[in-house]
């Protein structure tokens, strides 16, 4: 049982119908005799009603298939399979025993971070989802190169992809465990985006053989140049993908 006069908390509980029936009636009676408090309560009730109406509209968004529980379950299964695979290698490494095993474990740890996984991650975050604005925007290749040179000594020249219709449009600085990295997004007139990614190989000088890797809807071409690791991330279903891969001959 609440005490009279009702406290502010009691009034809010009254609005939210969280009082017992007896208390609810008690407040009804109290409000009937105290018009100024009743006006305050009514204003809160109106705010609540307005909020409900306004937020009600947000329930009517078109469905997003990526959010379907079946799709998400599928994705989780893939991920745990990949995890199990690397766990199996680890087990093998341990059972081989000794220094060899320990060394193999280290190899496993390095390779579980699939080559240039950070490049793909960066592409998803910045090029696809546009979560954060770019650090640098331009329409022109030279100024983009100048921007990159400000942060990285002896970096490769940006690849010229104008043959496939792609021009550098924005750049973003990132941090990795190995140090500062950067991503340059290229765009074609149709709005398709690909990215050029560069990062230092770290103190272990972990350089990469030339290779390519597919992860979901993305394809990464990676290689190492003097002092840096590079990747080009391309959506695999891009019509120009083949042409782009041929362009990257350096």
């Amino acid at each position, binding site marked *: 049982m609440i005490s009279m006069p009702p406290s502010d908390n009691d009034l*809010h509980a009254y609005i*939210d119908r*969280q009082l017992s029936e007896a208390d609810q009636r008690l407040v009804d009676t109290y409000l009937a005799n105290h018009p100024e408090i009743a006006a305050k309560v009514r204003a809160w009730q109106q705010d*609540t009603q307005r*909020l409900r109406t306004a937020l009600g509209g947000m*329930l009517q968004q078109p469905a*997003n298939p*990526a959010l379907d529980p079946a799709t998400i379950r599928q994705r989780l299964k893939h991920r745990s399979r990949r995890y199990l695979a690397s766990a199996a290698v680890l087990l093998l490494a341990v059972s081989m025993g000794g220094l060899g095993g320990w060394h193999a474990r280290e190899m496993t740890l390095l390779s579980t971070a699939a080559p240039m996984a950070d490049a793909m991650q960066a592409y998803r975050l910045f090029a696809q989802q546009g979560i954060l604005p770019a650090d640098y925007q331009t329409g022109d290749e030279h100024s983009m190169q100048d921007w990159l040179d400000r942060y990285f000594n002896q970096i490769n020249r940006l690849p010229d992809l104008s043959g496939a219709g792609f021009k550098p449009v924005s750049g973003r*600085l990132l941090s990795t465990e190995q140090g500062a990295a950067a991503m340059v997004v290229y765009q074609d007139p149709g709005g398709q985006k690909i990215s050029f990614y560069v990062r230092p190989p770290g103190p272990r000088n972990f350089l990469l053989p030339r290779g390519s890797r597919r992860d979901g809807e993305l394809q990464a071409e990676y290689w190492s140049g003097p002092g840096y690791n590079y990747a080009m991330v391309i959506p695999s279903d891009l019509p120009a993908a083949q042409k782009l891969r041929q362009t990257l001959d350096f």
Partner: protein
Amino acid sequence: MNELDDQLRVLIPRLRRFALSLTRNPSNADDLVQACLERALSKWNDRRPEGDLRAWLFSILYRQFLDAHRRSRRYARMLEFFTGRDDSQPSAERSVIAQSSLQAFDQLTTEQRALLLWVSVEGLSYQQVADILDVPTGTVMSRLSRARQALRQLSEGEITRPALRRLK
């Protein structure tokens, strides 16, 4: 499995609405919902079977939002350090809520928005909200009271000086 998926499917529009009221950006909101569902499905067995599914999902989503928010703030500071400028200010177009009649709501703190949505719109009990925030119900009530007062003041302010609204 299918029955469970159906239970989740029904709640997705509510999760998306909650995420949108927190992030104010539809694609970020959907990313948040996706992360929330992934977490929910992989931690399904930790759930108290008698508990309310909706409240449980809200609490996962809310916590993930706070974590991501903290991370992105740290990230923005780092960027500022590198480039000497602050990119963390979102542009006006990011604020979807600003276009509706919710300007006042949009100016409340994250927790106040969550509180009002849970209690006023979704009709969760004070006890459920207390469980989500991990505070006593008394604290929920006093914070709710402050949130309502803030909303009231902002709504009144809006009528007298609409031009001064800050986009954030």
